[in-house]
């Protein structure tokens, strides 16, 4: 078990935003969290990263309570934040190199280039400052960075936001192969169709509660069932 939430309760600014959710993500597994705005998806990721200590329940990373050793949990995780804002005055390569060094890794330019190839960031953009990038280009850079971290666990908050359909397709393939190499991926998304294709499991989050889980059976996840459940969650109750 790479990630595990156990009747997790989290409060932000005194208000309970996660009310006892339980789920787990294994190695070789892609888990997608679906839910409307404010459902608590990002909050769930931040709990695994040690930023929001639970008011009740627990979060485990590799069987260890996150809040007993936050540094160890973070070391095992590559995190792609919701609005990954890179340093505008640096190029994509420089941004990636800086963040990798932050994580205590050294990165060769060929390795960075290969990762940027994989997300199809155009080669002449790589030498330009990120300040001049489109949203999708920034997202691609951040995804490349998360891949390069080469950690056992990836926490991705809306990784496909801003990407064009081709790039989304590429991303899902990449994520699949990452999981197939033995890593655990927990990603937040609004994209029902994409989630059904790329994920092994989908958790439906609403109002801080897990309203249902869908697992791939035989030929992937039942898109129609997920779509129905999803519309139910986003319809104001």
């Amino acid at each position, binding site marked *: 078990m790479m990630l595990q939430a156990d009747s997790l309760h989290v409060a932000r600014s005194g208000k309970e935003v996660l009310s006892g959710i339980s789920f787990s993500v294994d190695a070789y597994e892609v888990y997608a969290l679906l839910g409307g705005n404010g459902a608590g998806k990002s909050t769930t990721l931040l709990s695994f990263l040690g930023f929001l200590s639970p008011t009740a329940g627990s979060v485990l990373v590799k069987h260890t309570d996150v809040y007993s050793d936050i540094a160890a949990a973070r070391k095992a995780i590559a995190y792609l*934040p919701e609005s990954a804002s890179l340093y505008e005055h640096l190029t994509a390569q420089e941004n990636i190199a*800086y963040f990798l*060094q932050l994580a205590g890794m050294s990165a060769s330019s060929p390795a960075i280039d290969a990762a940027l190839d994989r997300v199809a960031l155009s080669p002449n953009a790589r030498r330009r400052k990120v300040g001049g990038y489109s949203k999708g280009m920034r997202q691609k850079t951040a995804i490349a960075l998360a891949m390069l971290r080469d950690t056992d666990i990836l926490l991705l908050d809306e990784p496909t936001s801003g990407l064009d359909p081709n790039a989304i397709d590429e991303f899902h393939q990449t994520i699949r192969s990452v999981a197939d190499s033995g890593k655990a991926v927990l990603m937040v998304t609004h994209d029902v169709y994409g989630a059904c294709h790329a994920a092994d499991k989908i958790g439906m989050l609403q109002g801080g509660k897990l309203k249902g889980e869908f697992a791939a059976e035989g030929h992937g996840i039942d898109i129609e069932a997920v779509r129905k459940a999803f519309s139910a969650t986003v319809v104001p109750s």
Partner: protein
Amino acid sequence: MSIPGALRREVRFSSRDPVLWLWLALVLGLSAMSVAFGLAEVERQNETIQKLIDGDRHDRLAQYDKQESWGSAAYYSFHLTYDPPSDFAYAAMGQRDAQPWMHRIRMLALEGQIHERDVANPSIALIGRFDFAFLAAFVIPLVLILLLYDLRARERIAGRHDWLEATVGQPTSFWLLRASLRAGAVFVTLVVPVIIGGMVAGASPAKWFVATLGVFAYVALWTMACFFVSSWRRPGSVIMLALIAIWVAIAVIVPAGARLAIDRLVPIPTGADILLLQRETVNDAWDLPREVTMAAFFERHPEWSEYQPVEGSFEWQWYYAFQQVGDQRTEQLSTAYRDGRLRRDHMAAWVSILALPSLLERFLQSLADTDLRAFFEYEEGVRGYHAALRDFYYPKFFRNEAFDRTLLEDLPSFKPGNPGMG
């Protein structure tokens, strides 16, 4: 990541921040300017002193040629006393801006001559000269605040704060490294001009090394303060306001409040009081019976008590005696003035433990011998020199010795306490 690796990473990162470079250029400019002003002022003071030294003996000899008695020779002669700037004065002008550092004294009552200058500037200017000490103590904290207040808030606004913390192993040492690097760059740009200035001025390396250590500790303290306040989860503007409030409190409010309180707690006579009392005593002496004046004089100089004043005729013995009695009368007031000011200064020193900028300024001024202690030492030197002059002249007056110009070669000359620069 190893410390050198992290350091290299952050140096490379910060070196690409144009705003940091602008701040460093500003600090370098201000520091170079303050040091250049300081060196120029020290040179001007040294030149003034040198010119007066050159003229001192020459003017006196010219006077002697016109005189025929010891009494009139003493009356018309001026004697230069001066306090040359120390080799570190360029960095901290201190009392040299507010207090006289040279006098041309005569054999007349001394206290009035010493305090004459005080009348013109009775209180110390609130904001002194823009010297290095002022820059380091008062301006640099503001630069540090503006450079460090949004250490985290900036990243929070960019939505990068949690990402950075999730990526780096030890967030606290990461932020600390970023803060110290920026503050360290400020420290280096701040002290390089003062060290170069020290070499130009020929200051002893020990002196600017100790000064540099003091400034380092001071910058480190402010960096820590900025570091802790900036880790507060509040908008950058709130953090900046909080830090500026700390600055205003310890740089302005505490010293100003303390000065008011200390002045009220330790009342002291003014220089003008001393001057006035002495003038009155000296003027009244003309109308007093001469025995009264002489009796007061003989208390100090029983060795001349054989002298019998003659009422109605002018005698130099009596004239200089009442000058000295003028000093004797104001002695208590002068001592009260001096002790009072030293007591105030002593209390201000204690307060400056809370008002850190003043503490650093005082530290640099004491290194530069431009503090109140150095100033009073100079004044004591003037009194000592005046006493030596009296010791020279009194035997000549009271033994009615014939005027001999050649004996004036034995006139004591003033020896300044601080060896001058260069």
